[in-house]
């Protein structure tokens, strides 16, 4: 596979929550090969480093990718200045290992925390009614993508920390309930590290396959600079794996939390 980097046209931009934007970009070459769990590496103009953002939807026919990001610092603020019609500098698709899809899975649970929710959507698209999409947010003003999950046919469960919308509390509450109701074949998760760790432990206890998408600060995004390391176990050995190339999706068992 060759990597692709260039300027791509933004077709649509929507503000979907406080400081959270939803972009659709025309990039047929990339849309043709992109896989769930991979990400795009976006360059805010004038910055030394790109920003990794998960792919939220892949439409190979229309040749578009969709991603959703929150303004956190100066780089995402600069990216958020771009509007429909503008060009965006994108290196994509990146991520050596996306989600491993088991077509035969009968029931999967998708757990998204905050801005970790977007990469769950391509999975909901694949698994449809076989998926339960549990999403957790700090408060109602940060809730995103719930209608999208419903549209895919997924059972859609919403939690907020402060109870301002949906269930009050963490995603682990409905997760345990759903496991108890019917054990899923796979749990997919993306979100803050403490959440991922909790989900991984629950999966382990219940002996369920669990795939987690990790975050780490990145340089190149393609595996060359070795900055994006995370501690992992492979073949019984402790290694420093690289999130961009060996991930961003890891089997939860490999991760040293």
């Amino acid at each position, binding site marked *: 596979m060759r990597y692709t*980097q260039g300027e791509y046209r933004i077709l649509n931009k929507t503000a979907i929550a406080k400081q959270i934007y939803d972009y659709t970009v025309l990039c047929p070459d990339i849309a043709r090969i992109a896989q769930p769990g991979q990400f795009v590496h976006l360059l805010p103009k004038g910055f030394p480093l790109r920003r990794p953002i998960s792919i939220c939807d892949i439409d190979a026919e229309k040749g578009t990718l969709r991603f959703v990001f929150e303004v956190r610092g100066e780089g995402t603020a600069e990216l958020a200045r771009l509007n429909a019609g503008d060009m965006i500098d994108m290196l994509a698709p990146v991520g050596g290992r996306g989600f491993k899809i088991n077509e035969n899975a009968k029931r999967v649970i998708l757990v998204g925390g905050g801005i970790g929710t977007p990469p769950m959507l391509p999975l909901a698209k694949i698994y449809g009614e076989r998926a339960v999409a549990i999403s957790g947010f700090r408060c109602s003003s940060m809730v995103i993508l719930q209608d999208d999950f419903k549209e895919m046919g997924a059972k859609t469960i919403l939690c907020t920390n402060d109870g301002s919308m949906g269930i009050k509390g963490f995603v682990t509450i409905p997760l345990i309930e759903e496991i108890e109701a019917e054990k899923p074949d796979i749990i997919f998760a993306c979100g803050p590290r403490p959440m991922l760790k909790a989900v991984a432990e629950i999966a382990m206890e219940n002996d369920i396959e669990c795939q987690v998408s990790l975050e780490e*600060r990145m340089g190149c995004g393609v*595996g060359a600079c*070795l900055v994006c390391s995370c501690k992992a176990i492979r073949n019984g050995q402790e*290694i420093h794996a690289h999130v961009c190339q060996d991930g961003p999706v890891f089997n939860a068992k490999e991760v040293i939390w």
Partner: protein
Amino acid sequence: MADLSVNIAGVEFKNPVIPASGTFGYGREYGRFYPLSKLGGIATKGTTLESRLGNLAPRIAETPSGILNSVGLQNPGIDKFIRVELPNLMKQETVIIVNIAGSTVEEYIEVAKKLEETDAHMIELNISCPNVKEGGVAFGVSCDSAAGITAAVRKVTKKPLIVKLSPNVTDIAGIAKAVEAEGADAVSLINTLLGMRIDIRTGRPVLRNNVGGLSGKAVFPVAVRMVWQVANAVKIPVIGMGGVATANDAIELMMAGATAVQVGTAMFANPFAPIEIIDGINEYLDKNGISSVREIIGSVKSW
């Protein structure tokens, strides 16, 4: 089409642009953007005797026009490098510069010896990495230790030997002279400037290693100054680096005295940076009626 070739210590480079050590892995990844044969050479990730895990993450922070890194020499060790990576590199029709590092003089010697039996074209002795506790930068900050390690490695290798200098010193020209006297065939500079960032929300250093090496455009003026000072102090060729992002930057560094340039951090924003720099140098030379890139080396007219 101007003549872009340069010669360093008897090794012919088709052009003076080389991806910098540690930013280009062993070439596999950027080889998926463009054929590596377009490059003047490749400086590989710093390799040590045994495999190393490197420092804990986060290992990178952004700074105004620059970055800090604290990778700390993560690498598979020289044996695996020779077995797995070098054969692939040697097929790429470009000059292969193996960057080596270690914690002790003996470790450097062992690594150099193992490379002696390979086809690798050149060795770059990294005595300036700021991200490892023992050794590394310690060798690079005094004339005596820099000279000592150069002499020791010189004894065990016939390959052209480049010594990579640290900018975290009072007198870089003095250190360059010291390694020249001990048989270095070339010097390369600058490695990263030691820096730090703190996340004021958490009160924690952004890098898990507390400090890291500053690279990227921010350091470019320091690189130009040091290349100029060193080129005026030694007779061996100087390979310049530190913040080179465009053909104009490369030309500026060559005017200051560099025979070739390395490009690192710029690739993170623009993976095609080395290719665009090669093309841009060629354009500049053609436009100015200069037939060989060698004419601009050290051509600055100081006041």
